């Protein structure tokens, strides 16, 4: 505080900060980006290690023998699935009962706000089947969940097979101290949502489901298995959940430890860990892995069936079997043994997983970057906003006095509250329109235009988004003559602080989203004034707007996944991503769409307003 309370040094400091504001901002931006890129560089990251004592030192043996039988069960399941044309409820109930589980079913139904064209569903009706293996060794206060989805077509039959095989095998073991719930959920996440809401007696999304008849204890951890082939070459771990939430890092460590022990290839984001960090290709491999994680996390949607567990404070991950052209294959028995080992260790937990990190990025499965390392990258970007705000504040608090011809000094009048409030209110109303209208007006749009409901929703959203750009001119008519020099500075001060708080909060909840938004919005917030060349800046602003950021992110994501798309496909993908975002919000309560529509977009509009300040 000494520096800040001594008036002379303080004045010097502020003088320096205002004089060198632009270069400092540039340096901060570049340092922020460089810091972020450095996160993938191996010497700057930490090696993962098991923090949880209960899982670290205890030895378990994996003896699951019945891989072949599990696959046979899987084929039987597939046959029954084909016969009933959906979830073979009766067969599953019978089979689970035959394996000695307490079996219950849950029916659910849900009408989507508009048809989901990706998964081709609108009125969803389904049944979840779950069996509880009661813990023989302890009071039934805690539980673990193993789930496999009942997917349409020929997908995930092997996963259900292994689930049932494990159920049979676990039944014969005596060391279970936690209830184990084997869940087969229909309609992937919708079924999972219904089951979790039923289990916890909450209803956050207005879905219809029948109450659960049987429960275990409080769920400590959950794994979701997705497996569509008899043999796999590698197992992929998916961590990203709803709203960018991640499970405790120990769950990833556990998975990695067992893959190492049993000798299964394991990946995250479909990328194997590599050892050649000092080569360019090794580094770019790590960057790709990390960027994939960042993009997936930023999308705020659950990337596997586990994603919804995290909201209930349950550590969960999805394990996906990948069958590629590598020569070395892993059979179902080994996968079963891996799962057995993981559940044995989870069974040993004395309290919830909490020892390790919750905020991390993974440049590979063996390396992680914790919050203390990645936050400075965001902090450097946010610092720019604070510096700009300080600069504006200093300019505002010492207004330049203009001398008129008579030699009388005229202090510019301070701007009216109205001239600030009007753009704020208008841009937020546009945001509210963007949030509510697309879904509300779909019927109207379908009547008048030759489009399907889904297209109607997406195109309405894009139309409102674009219409928002026309607003500044309208605002000006309302405020004729009020656009003073002071006016835009105050508006910009408000907008910059607004953006800083908004991005800060976003980055705390979902670092990736906050960082990507900061990367595009911060430079724009820093340079926009009414005095920069209009056309050029307008183009730059549109390019850096949240909507186009999403478009670029879609192309970038495809590029990183090594499935590049053409412009046409990319555009279609972009449209479907928007509809998925709106659906995710309506179905599971993902926060990205309301955040973007109600806060980020209005904030961007404020800067657009400043650019066209008269």
């Amino acid at each position, binding site marked *: 505080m000494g520096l800040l309370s001594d008036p002379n040094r*303080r004045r010097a400091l502020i003088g320096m900060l205002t004089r060198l504001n632009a270069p400092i901002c540039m340096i901060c931006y570049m340092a922020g980006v460089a810091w972020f890129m450095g996160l993938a560089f191996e010497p700057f990251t930490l090696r993962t290690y098991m923090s949880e004592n209960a899982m670290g030192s205890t030895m378990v043996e994996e003896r699951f023998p019945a891989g072949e039988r599990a696959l046979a069960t899987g084929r039987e399941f597939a046959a029954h699935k084909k016969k009933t044309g959906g979830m073979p409820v009766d067969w599953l109930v019978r089979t689970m009962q035959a394996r000695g589980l307490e079996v219950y079913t849950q029916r659910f139904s849900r009408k989507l706000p508009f048809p989901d064209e990706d998964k081709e569903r609108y009125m969803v009706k389904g049944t979840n089947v779950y069996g509880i293996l009661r813990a023989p060794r302890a009071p039934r206060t805690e539980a673990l969940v193993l789930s496999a989805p009942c997917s349409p077509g020929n997908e995930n039959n092997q996963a259900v097979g292994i689930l049932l095989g494990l159920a049979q095998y676990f039944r014969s073991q005596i060391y279970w101290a936690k209830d184990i719930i084997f869940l087969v959920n229909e309609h992937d996440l919708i079924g999972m949502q219904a089951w979790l809401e039923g289990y916890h007696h909450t209803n956050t999304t207005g879905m219809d489901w029948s109450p659960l008849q049987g429960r275990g204890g409080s769920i400590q951890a959950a794994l979701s298995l997705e497996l569509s082939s008899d043999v796999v070459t590698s197992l992929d771990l998916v961590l990203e959940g709803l709203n960018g939430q991640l499970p405790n890092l120990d769950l990833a460590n556990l998975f990695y430890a067992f893959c190492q022990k049993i000798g299964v290839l394991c990946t995250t984001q479909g990328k194997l860990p590599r050892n050649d960090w000092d080569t360019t290709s090794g580094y770019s491999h790590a960057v790709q892995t990390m960027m994939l994680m960042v993009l997936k996390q930023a999308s705020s949607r659950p990337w596997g069936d586990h994603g919804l567990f995290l909201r209930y404070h349950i550590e969960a991950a999805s394990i996906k079997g990948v069958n590629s052209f590598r020569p070395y294959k892993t059979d179902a028995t080994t996968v079963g043994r891996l799962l057995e080992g993981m559940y044995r260790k989870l069974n040993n937990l004395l309290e919830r997983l909490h020892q390790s990190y919750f*905020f991390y990025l993974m440049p590979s499965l063996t390396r992680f970057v914790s919050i203390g390392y990645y936050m400075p990258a965001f902090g450097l970007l946010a610092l720019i906003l604070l510096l700009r705000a300080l600069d504006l504040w200093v300019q505002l608090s010492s207004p330049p006095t203009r001398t008129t011809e008579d030699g009388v000094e005229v202090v510019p009048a301070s701007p009216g509250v109205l001239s600030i409030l009007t753009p704020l209110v208008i841009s937020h109303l546009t945001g509210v329109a963007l949030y509510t209208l697309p879904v509300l007006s779909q019927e109207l749009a379908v009547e008048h235009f030759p489009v399907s409901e889904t297209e109607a929703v997406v195109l309405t959203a894009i139309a409102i988004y674009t219409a928002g750009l026309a607003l500044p001119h309208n605002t000006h008519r309302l405020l004729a003559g009020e656009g003073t020099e002071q006016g835009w500075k105050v508006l910009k001060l408000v907008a910059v602080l607004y953006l800083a708080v908004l991005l800060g909060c976003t980055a705390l909840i979902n670092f990736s989203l906050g960082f990507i938004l900061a990367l595009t919005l911060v430079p724009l917030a820093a340079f926009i004034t009414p005095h920069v060349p209009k056309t050029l800046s307008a183009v730059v602003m549109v390019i850096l707007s949240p909507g186009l950021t999403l478009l670029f992110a879609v192309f970038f994501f495809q590029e990183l996944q090594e499935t590049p798309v053409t412009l046409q496909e990319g555009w279609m993908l972009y449209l479907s991503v928007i509809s998925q975002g709106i659906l995710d919000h309506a179905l599971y309560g993902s926060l990205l769409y309301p955040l973007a529509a109600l806060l980020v977009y209005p904030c961007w509009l404020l800067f657009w307003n400043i650019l066209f300040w008269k």
Partner: protein
Amino acid sequence: MAAPLALLLIVAVTIRAALFRTSLANLISERVEVVSPLNAWKRVVEGLALLDLDISPYSGDVFHETPMVIYLFHFLMDYAEITFMLADCLTAVALYLAVKDYNKQVFRKQKFALEADRIPMDCLELIRSPTEMYYIPLKVAMFYLLNPFTIVSCVAKCTCGLNNAVIALFILSTMRGSALLSAIFLALATYQSIYPLTLCVPALLYLLQRLYIPVNVRRSSFWFYTLQYLFMFLGSLLVLICLSFFLLGSWDFLPAVYGFILSVPDLTPNIGLFWYFFAEMFDHFRLFFLCVFQINVFFYTLPLSIKLKEHPVFLIFMQIALIAIFKSYPTVGDLSLYMAFLPVWNHLYRFLRNIFLVSCVLLACSALFPVLWHLWIYAGSANSNFYYAITLLFSVAQVPVCLSPSLLSSRESSSKTALFTHSLLF
């Protein structure tokens, strides 16, 4: 001047009434920043239910309001929303009138000083024009009524709105020079939450100043007046407590209300400094640190009264701010009361260092409270340290807001300006 005030009241009531109708009201009334175990509406309802069943509302560890409040709501249960809106309006009007009175005095003082030519040249800019002063009372009312903190507090039906109303009435009656009313309202405020006890000193100083009685221990008139005021204060406090006893028929409320405030058994997180510290504390240190923490509220009264002897109104402001920062169960409603006074000293804010930094921190903290709460309680990915860090930052940021004006005098500006500022403008 009445028209803008009426308009302001209408706007404020409309906002509150609209918010009461939305689902936001439920959400807000659950927030730990807005309600504390002491003044949550949920607990009042619980206490009323117990009272209706002829069980002492203080049995069990839920209800911690004073008996007066519960009997008030016994009759006003159906009109609770209106009561809280009225309380806010009452506070605003009382502050408005009080500040108006105070401004008149300041203006008179300023005029005398101008006529006597006692103002150094470099201080002329500190003199406030009548137009400036004309709008200050309205600004005060606006700062109180439209402050988001007041609004959420009212929408959550947090009873600290009532306490604020009582304190505002106390300030008004003090400004008007009515010793009896001042003592009665002060007793009521003290009865509600102990801490306003410290406001006794500034009120006394103000009343003495008003009657031109010098603060001098050797003068009998000083002692006479002081004792008279204290007698009125303690007398009405005694009457209130006895009345509560007769209403309730037992002394249960003493430990349940005052014991609860002073010994801080409920460590639900809030925006204060107590909960984290005492959650971590070993039991055998508890009593000692309890005294240390509680003494903070009362301790500064003495040095501040000596330093600000000539400026009792500013002392009242300081005391309210200190109570809001250091009390055991603070809520945002407490903050809003002292924030309402900020426009009164707006001409001094050019001297405030770091005002920009501080307001940014307050703004950011207010946004971060719910975010970190979500991360800690719902997502489970952050922990209590994150939340407490913000609490701490929030409290630290409040200190310059209320303390800086008083520190102006000693450093920074030339001594002449300082002296002048000090003598004239508080």
